[in-house]
């Protein structure tokens, strides 16, 4: 026992000395940056990408069909580049849809699955977990590409304007809005940087980083879940999965992110 006690003491003393010098050279923010860098190699999102790719190609549902004919906006079966142009207007549904609502639409029309049932399912469970895995894979196919949402259709412009209003909507017990935390540069909650989502926050930040693997709970988070939990923390009531305001927020943030390089699926705290 003795050697360890003495050695441990020596280590503590040494650490204290190094610590003092170190603290001046390196802030907590730098330390966090180092931590994030270490996690980049070996992002468990890869496990979900693989699952999503399988789900895309597998024949499933009452119609025993794959999703390979799903039109994510660039034509049936075109996956590469689709993510960085969503949400967008789809003529066949007459609506602006984000990645997840479009995937559910394809699961319903091509595979015969029940869209309403999926929308009601909890995140991380059953077919909802499959939607998240599919979204993770679809996003990964546009990694490194730049966001370029269309504003050509009147509905796309309307979606942006609605999204902007929703973004600034204050309410709940704490008077929070999305804007309360995400409309200024260089701010953070605890040690987490807050992207300014009212303008282009830069490459791989904000909208250009989700879906992401959350290390805090070891789950894959899609954009719909990201928004859902933002609203939970805002102390708002529960936003419906794929509801119009969630899609409109996607349009607002996505258009604002124009030109930003996608790093999705990322890894986050």
């Amino acid at each position, binding site marked *: 026992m003795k050697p360890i006690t003495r050695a441990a003491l020596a280590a503590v003393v040494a650490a204290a000395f190094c610590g003092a010098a170190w603290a001046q050279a390196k802030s*907590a923010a730098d330390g966090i940056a180092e931590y994030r860098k270490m996690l980049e190699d070996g992002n468990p999102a890869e496990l979900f990408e693989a699952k999503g790719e399988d789900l895309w190609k597998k024949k499933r549902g009452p119609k025993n069909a794959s999703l390979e004919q799903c039109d994510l906006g660039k034509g049936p079966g075109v996956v590469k580049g689709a993510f960085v142009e969503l949400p967008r207007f789809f003529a066949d549904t007459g609506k602006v849809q984000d990645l997840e609502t479009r995937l559910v639409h394809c699961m319903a029309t091509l595979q015969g699955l029940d869209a309403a049932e999926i929308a009601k399912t909890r995140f991380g469970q059953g077919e909802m977990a499959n939607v998240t895995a599919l979204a993770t894979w679809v996003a990964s196919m546009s990694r490194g590409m730049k966001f370029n949402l269309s504003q050509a259709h*009147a509905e796309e*412009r*309307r979606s942006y*304007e*609605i999204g902007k*209003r*929703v973004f*600034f*909507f*204050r*309410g*709940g*017990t*704490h*008077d*929070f*809005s999305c*804007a*309360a*935390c995400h*409309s*200024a540069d*260089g*701010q*953070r*909650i*605890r*040690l987490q940087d*807050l992207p300014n989502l*009212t303008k282009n926050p830069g490459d791989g930040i904000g909208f250009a980083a989700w879906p992401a693997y959350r290390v805090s709970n070891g789950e894959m988070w899609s954009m719909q879940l990201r928004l859902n939990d933002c*609203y*939970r*923390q805002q*102390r*708002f*009531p*529960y*936003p*419906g999965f794929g*509801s*119009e*305001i*969630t899609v*409109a927020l996607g349009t607002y943030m996505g258009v604002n992110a124009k030109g930003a390089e996608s790093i999705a699926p990322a890894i986050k705290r």
Partner: protein
Amino acid sequence: MNTRFALIAAAAGAAVLLAGCATGPSKAELDQQAMALMKASFRDQGIAKVDRLNQDLGQAACSTDAEVSDEVAERIRNEALASIRWPAGGQYFGNWIDGERIAQSGRGMTWTDASAETRNNGGNCYNCHQIDKKELSYGTIGPSLWNYGKLRGITDVTAPTAAPIVQYTWAKLWNSKAYAACSNMPRFGHMKVLDEQQIRHIMSLLLDPRSPVNQ
């Protein structure tokens, strides 16, 4: 004169129409649509009911990236100031140890919280503020509160000279909108997020000369 006015009015009307064709719904229409979609998109979950979307004057006025008019801002501040409940028995202070615990906690009032009772709630303080320097993980949305009392010259919280700062701090915690109409800080007392006793503890954390914040 009348004719000329009519002509201008007609031209203006035509311009509005043209603009309407080119850009889709008007600003007012979009405002209305957004509000309707907010109501349609949310549902009750646990303690978080849809009535949380019913905005009061300040919430509605501060839901935009535009500046709030001076007149509206003043109304919000005055209403907030009038809403403040001063502590029973003039007792403003608790203990800073509990204050630190409340400041650290970001819990409460979400749809995953079982009840809205204040004892379940935290103050979320470190989410936005530096407070005790020992805590490395602090937010920067609000100003640093390190040495909050010391910088304001508080050596004895009961001294008459301390009264203005003590009262201001209580009011800020109870209803932050009393001093800034569109403050991002929650109205802890007014919205029943924290109770009087919890606010006393935070008061001690910030103002007590013995609190680690004022070393």
